[in-house]
């Protein structure tokens, strides 16, 4: 296809992405290095006869408004916002490094810094949910594949539900059940034998609940992909393995899993991207007090009375860099595929 024709075909979608994805990124980066103007203060000296003179500091409304109008972006602070306490907290980290005597103490102190807490939760979520999703998906696929033909279609229908449902809605449905007054919640209370046992009160339990939701939501996707892979399983290889006396477990391990391996990579990649975005369950579970992800951290900055655009922008930029790092192995692989395909 010639360059010019390509350009015309690609123009509408390219323009949409340029204007509403690429430019906002530029705008986010810009906002992250500017902070809102501080109010201009002036000192006014009040002299009253007999009492004497007092100086008073007041906000010069006019000058402040003028300054804001002149430089709407705010004042340039460079990387200041990135390094402040709400983000990378460089000073606090240095201080911690010198004052704490063990790595454990250092890490636990680090957990008090909001940004690192969000980062820790996001990475833990990615690291826990991705492998569990793959394993659960594989087991479901193997189990459903051995079902009777008529049951398969029905089971696929029900299996799709947790994935297709809107994430916020899915997390609400689960949350209402695990709420201490809900059906699972009250069962847990009965099991624990402690009437005050509550998900909302415990950070650890909240993390577990969020991850259970993550696996519940994502397992159907892994299942569907693996199930499709199982339909193309080489029958002759399985037969050969049987003739050689392989047990069922060995067949799965040496024939089925290697056959599905490219799919495992594919699912892992998609899950890595999607789990890194984790956001809605934190809103749905009302878990902001116990767990923040990078996305919900931005959401909190943007919502509420004061929109903290600079702070949200800085977190956004760090998140985008994180995405790029996470994806770098994939990019290399795609480049090789592309070279090979031509």
């Amino acid at each position, binding site marked *: *296809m010639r360059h010019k024709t*390509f350009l*015309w*075909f*690609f123009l*509408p979608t390219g323009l*949409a*992405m340029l204007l*509403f*994805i690429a430019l906002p*990124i530029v*705008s*986010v980066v810009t*906002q992250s290095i500017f902070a809102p103007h501080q109010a201009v203060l002036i000192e006014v000296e009040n002299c009253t006869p007999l009492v004497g003179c007092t100086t008073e500091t007041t906000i010069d409304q006019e000058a402040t408004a003028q300054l804001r109008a002149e430089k709407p972006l705010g004042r340039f602070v460079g990387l200041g916002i990135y390094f402040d306490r709400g983000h990378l907290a460089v000073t606090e980290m240095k201080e911690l490094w010198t004052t704490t005597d063990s790595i454990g103490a250092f890490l636990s102190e680090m957990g008090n810094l909001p940004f690192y807490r969000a980062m820790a939760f996001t990475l833990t979520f990615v690291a826990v949910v991705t492998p569990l999703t793959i394993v659960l998906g594989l087991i*479901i696929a193997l*189990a459903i594949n051995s079902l009777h033909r008529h049951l398969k*279609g029905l089971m*696929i229908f029900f*299996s*799709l539900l947790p994935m*297709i449902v*809107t*994430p*916020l*809605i899915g997390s*609400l*449905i689960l949350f*209402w*059940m695990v709420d201490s*007054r809900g*059906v699972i919640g009250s069962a847990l209370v009965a099991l624990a034998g402690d009437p005050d046992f509550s998900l909302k009160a415990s950070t650890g339990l909240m993390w577990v609940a969020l991850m259970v939701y993550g696996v*519940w939501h994502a397992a159907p996707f892994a299942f*569907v*992909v693996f199930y*499709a*892979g199982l339909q193309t399983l080489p029958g002759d290889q399985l*037969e050969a393995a049987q003739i050689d006396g392989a047990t*069922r477990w060995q067949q799965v391990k040496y024939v089925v899993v290697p056959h599905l391996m*490219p*799919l495992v*990579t594919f699912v892992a990649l998609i899950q890595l991207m999607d789990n*890194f975005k984790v*956001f*809605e369950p934190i809103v749905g579970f009302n878990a902001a007090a116990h767990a923040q992800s990078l*996305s919900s951290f*931005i*959401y909190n900055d*943007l*919502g509420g009375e004061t929109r903290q*655009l600079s702070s*949200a922008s800085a977190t*956004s930029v760090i*998140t*985008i860099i994180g*995405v790029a790092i996470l994806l770098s192995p994939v*990019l290399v692989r*795609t*480049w090789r595929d*592309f070279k090979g395909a*031509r």
Partner: protein
Amino acid sequence: MASRAQRMPKSLRIASSLFVLFWFILAAFPFAWTVWGSFKVELDFFSIADWTNAITGERTQAVYGSSFTDTGYAGAWIQEEFWRNVLNTGIVCFFVVTISLTIGTLGGYALSRSTYNYTFWLLITALIFRAMPPITLVAGYLLPFFEWNVWGILPTTIIVLVAINQPFTLWMLHSFFKNIPSELDESAKVDGCNQFQAFRRVIIPVMWPGVITTGLFSFLLAYNDFAVGAMLLSESNRTMVPAIAAFLGTTQTEGNVMFAVAAVVSATVPLFILVMFFQRQIVGGLTAGAVKG
């Protein structure tokens, strides 16, 4: 799986069936429970005293004389005017799907037929865009949208969602078009068509399965969106999902969680129907990118 040797031993068959049953309960029970509970009063849905109340609806019986009540739905749809949000979601989804597919088909086709290096870089950029959480972009939208006075209205959200949808749409359609042999449009060009005519006369008639599948996923993306809608829409223009989130904030104090439960069930019904009719396409779409790779 007909051969005798392939047949599972009994113990494994039982274990496997039990596991399927377990997964079935895990996948379906929360929905069934919530649908059932949405016709009860709050004290039954969240029953502290006795969990069987949620099934029998004892309190509901005491209040309304029947173990089912539609007060949750009436409250959500009429009192809280949830129908407005439903309408907004309908408008947003319709336009997002139409516009995404139109411009995505053109772009995806171009990407699949061009062999220059820049197609690779465009696809990679799209992949990175796809991996970015949408909320990271919102901070970049707010100031300009306030400035141009377009914040809070549906068209803005539609355009933003179309753009956010594009990377995914491009990747999906790109792989669908790759599967349509390029000899097809090459031969049309030999017969004197230019590229666009070849696309219109030869490719469009055969592309529908791929476009329908991509359209389904575009629809889901628009329907399920929370971050963009919650941040870019004013209160009166909210779509369903941000509205449900807003319900929670306001209704919990009023003791009307049941409104939110009813709204949640209402918003799940279209998805149910979608899976019922398009199960094959959804499964096909999910595996399209995978089975080749």
